[in-house]
């Protein structure tokens, strides 16, 4: 055991910093650092240089065009690029369906989809939740009936993040009704341009359009778009969610936001003195920073088990729970520091082309919306209560 970074790892961190400094467009990083609205093109302008450098898929093995990096290298990349304001890449292709296709997909599926995920040509979205199936995901009832060489899909998915930007959707659908509700679920890949697919926006309580309803009416999906065996989609779906959990910890972003919190505390006063000099406030910041350090070490620990060949265990649920709690606490403390200067609410000022004046402090305005937006983190990817159920049952054997 050696919990210090090696010289090679330190040199790699520098290489990453140099690359980001040279290739991340300045206007994109500025939007990220100031919590402004990002559009698809902003993310794409970071995706492409990474693709060209061969750094687009850190966790994928060499043979699928990935970096084949160790878990420590992946962590370093995450932290260093986030620190300089790199936007989060769309996770649905690179982090979710990509690993699924590598593990369960046919060679044809791998050859068709993986290169386009890497290049950024195809954006994906995730068709899991339904209006009646949230935490009880296995109760889903979007139906797919086999007719000749195609499945006919009918039903509705919801909370679909960035469906409005996606070219493809991976869906859990019911292909038969078994004795157990987990049986008879299958995973299908569907082109978003197929007739009968309709995307309807959902506006969240921060006023933004990020998630959607996706409706399917007699949508024809070619049978070769079935992933794995028919009726075995539940275990594939769970495999995907456990991959999602290690990425969902978001250590890199949280480390950046912690620096931002201290920065805000240096320029906002309590009783005439910078908040950073207030011992009560700084005690809370220190507590959060220590929890984040613990999370970071836990990510490295869990990831090193994963790298040794084992699947991410249910322990990864810890990362989801603590990672999202920390993200939420950061948004709360940031909001608390700026106080009333976060009251002015002018969402058009957070977009690209705003030329007008901004009331209040420019940097404070998006913090309230961001606080509200981040409430989602303890709900998505399996609520934190579901994660606790998973640990209770599969780790503690209760």
């Amino acid at each position, binding site marked *: 055991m050696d919990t210090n970074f090696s010289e090679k790892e330190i040199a790699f961190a520098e290489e990453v910093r140099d690359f980001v400094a040279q290739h991340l467009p300045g206007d994109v990083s500025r939007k990220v650092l100031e919590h402004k609205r990002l559009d698809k093109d902003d993310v794409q302008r970071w995706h492409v240089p990474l693709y060209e450098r061969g750094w687009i898929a850190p966790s994928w093995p060499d043979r699928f065009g990935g970096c084949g990096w160790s878990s420590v290298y992946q962590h370093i990349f995450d932290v260093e690029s986030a620190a300089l304001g790199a936007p989060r890449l769309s996770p649905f292709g690179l982090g979710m369906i990509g690993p699924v296709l590598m593990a369960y997909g046919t060679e044809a599926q791998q050859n068709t989809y993986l290169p386009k995920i890497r290049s950024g040509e195809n954006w994906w979205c995730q068709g899991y939740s339904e209006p009646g199936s949230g935490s009880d995901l296995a109760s889903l009832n979007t139906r797919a009936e086999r007719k000749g060489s195609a499945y006919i899909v009918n039903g509705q998915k919801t909370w679909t993040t960035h469906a409005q930007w996606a070219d493809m959707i991976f869906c859990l659908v019911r292909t038969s009704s078994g004795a157990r509700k987990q049986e008879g679920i299958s995973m299908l890949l569907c082109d978003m341009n197929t007739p009968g697919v309709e995307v309807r926006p959902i506006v969240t309580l921060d006023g933004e359009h990020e998630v959607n309803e996706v409706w399917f009416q007699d949508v024809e999906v070619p049978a070769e778009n079935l992933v794995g065996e028919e009726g075995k989609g539940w275990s594939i779906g769970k495999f995907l969610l456990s991959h999602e959990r290690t990425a969902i910890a978001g250590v890199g972003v949280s480390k950046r936001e912690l620096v931002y919190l201290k920065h805000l505390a*240096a320029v906002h006063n309590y009783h005439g003195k910078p908040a950073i000099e207030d011992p009560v406030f700084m005690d809370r910041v220190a507590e959060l920073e220590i929890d984040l350090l613990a999370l970071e070490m836990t990510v*490295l620990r869990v990831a090193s088990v994963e790298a040794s060949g084992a699947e991410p265990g249910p322990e990864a649920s810890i990362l989801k729970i603590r990672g999202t709690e920390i993200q939420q606490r950061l948004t709360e403390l940031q909001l608390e520091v700026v106080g009333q200067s976060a009251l002015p609410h002018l969402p058009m000022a957070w977009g690209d082309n705003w030329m007008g004046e901004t009331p209040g402090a*420019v940097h404070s305005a998006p913090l309230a919306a961001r606080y509200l937006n981040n409430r989602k983190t303890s709900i998505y990817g399996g609520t934190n209560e579901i994660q606790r159920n998973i640990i209770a049952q599969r780790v503690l054997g209760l």
Partner: protein
Amino acid sequence: MRFAFTDEQAMFKDGLDRLLEKNFSIATRRKIIESKEGHSEQVWAGLAELGALGVPLSEESGGLGGAGIEAMIIMQHLGKHLVLEPYLSSVILAGGLVDLCGSEFQKKVLVPELVAGEGKLAFAHAEQLNDEGGAALETTATQKGNNWVLRGQKKLVLGGATADRFIISAKTREDGEKVGVTLFIVESLDERISGKAYPLLDGSRVLDIQLNDLEVGPESVLGTIDQAQSFIDCVNDRATAAVCSEALGIMEVIHEMTMDYLRTRKQFGSALSQFQVLQHRAVDMFINIEEVRSLVMHAAGQAWSEDSRERVRAVSAAKALTNRAGRLVAQEAIQLHGGMGMTQELPLADFVRRLLSIELMFGGERFQRRRFVNADEQAVDSSVFVSPKKRWKQI
């Protein structure tokens, strides 16, 4: 960065587990506490035989050349088995000081005895107990010819009741804000030292000692005159990391006891483990323990380092979290055990009392968090963010 143990570390860990499994139980522990001696030479000899007493000391000094990770393994197991023996005080604290600043001759005399289990050391440092982090050293050593005269009192000397020698810290220079501290090593049987032994919350015994103009020769000086403070900080950080590892071992046992209880205890016709509200509390205990494990490993990797900024931050982070998590784990264990959790009869009681003792020594939660913040002398580099002040626009 690697998280797997080396083969050597894994073998040592297994050996330690076997030794303690065989020779140490809660019943034995309770007997030892009741005995006149208050400690067990048999267990100490076993640790010596295994080589554990020399593990975290450098090879140049006659140790086995291990460091923080090896100390972590040992302390975690001593915690798991709730061993009373003065490993922390004798090996980590006092042994560490001899290792770091002893002369060749002092090391030659002291280290082989310590490693063989034939001589125990204790570090007498604490004085005032009512000012965490702010208390100044009041014990003085004044020069008299070639000799030094020690005057003052030391409190809560861990392992003091069984030590053969004390290492005593004393002020040898005071120049405004600057204080020179020097270490002296003296025989515990010296009749000019008066000591008063008493038990702690966890059943171990400590000593308060009174130094009434104790005159010692120049050979008693350990290290360089006036220069001891940084070495004291160093071993205190090692000891703090060590008790966090011990606390981790204790919390693991407490959690396992609680899980067993939830699985077997029945109410309303089903096992307590079937109730979701209790499951989630058990999970929160588990998450806290895993977080402590992560920071214990991090601290173990830094505790032997000379880079004081990284060391202090890693150690203080670990202790702050260990204190908070330790309290949660103990409280939840008692609550989930119901009335039985309140009894002294259950071994849980012994673990809870030691865990609480650890929380109270080497600095509390707020003290450690402040130390964590203060160690970060370099201003936060937030140059990546444009200063908001410059960009304020008002309508």
